[in-house]
């Protein structure tokens, strides 16, 4: 049973929160100081890191078993295929 109940300490959660706030400040800074075309990908990369932190720690995915991890991987892969194949069409029409 203990593998199903992992307690994440307040301290760790607060550290993740501080990280998320810092990344929010960074992403706003990047957008305000328009650093060229790279800022679109930079902003999205920061969003992916923030999303990863939320899923891994706030949503406890880091402590879940293989089933949920693989299902998450599958769901994100399906989304990536949707987006990727749509852009094959949109960009090279």
């Amino acid at each position: 049973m203990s593998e199903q109940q992992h307690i994440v300490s307040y301290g760790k959660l607060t550290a993740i929160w501080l990280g998320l706030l810092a990344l929010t400040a960074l992403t706003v800074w990047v957008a305000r100081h328009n650093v060229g075309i790279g800022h679109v990908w930079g902003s999205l990369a920061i969003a992916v890191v923030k999303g990863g932190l939320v899923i891994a720690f706030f949503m406890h995915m880091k402590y879940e078993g293989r089933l949920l991890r693989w299902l998450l991987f599958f769901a994100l892969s399906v989304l990536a295929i949707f987006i990727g194949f749509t852009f094959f069409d949109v960009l090279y029409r």
Partner: protein
Amino acid sequence: MSGPLHKDYAGAKLGMWLFLFTELLLFGGLFLLYAAYLARYPREFGTAGGQMHLGFGTLNTVILITSSLLVAMAVTAIQRNARRMVLWLLGGTVLCAAVFLFNKYLEWSDEIGKGIYPNSPKLVAAPPGESVFFSLYYLTVGLHGLHVLIGGTLLTLVAVRVQRGTIHAGDYVLLENGALYWHLVDLVWIFIFPLYYLIL
């Protein structure tokens, strides 16, 4: 550390995650639409995106991230059997949800006051890409706002059950699933924020 767990614990959480995956694909579809139209109307999206309120977007990002922390702490608190703490943390989360929606009300009131809403005379006269941007904006952010409302209601019901003692350290899967739903709301906003407020 580990109390007696609900017998359907793994199943309940699996079910919640499967539901969250459908939500990811729902919002993912809207993001895909956004990306495809951005590729088609980059200049119009730039003009339209320039009219967004970065202040409201940033403030609401901080509010949602904080609420996500509070509800994650509530899960830790129930595992440690700290009921009063759980109630305070859930109260804080629901308060954040209310403040978020109030900010949304102010933001949308201002935009609607400026004649920016689907099918408004101003947008009908504007280049097509701008009306597409704002239609997608109202659809995506409106759907997200609906999720905030549902999540806030759900967590209020969870708090009532914690108060009554039907959710406790030995059986808290409802709190955990409610928290997962709330984190999804935060997760979706983490992507809405750069797409609509930052990159244009």
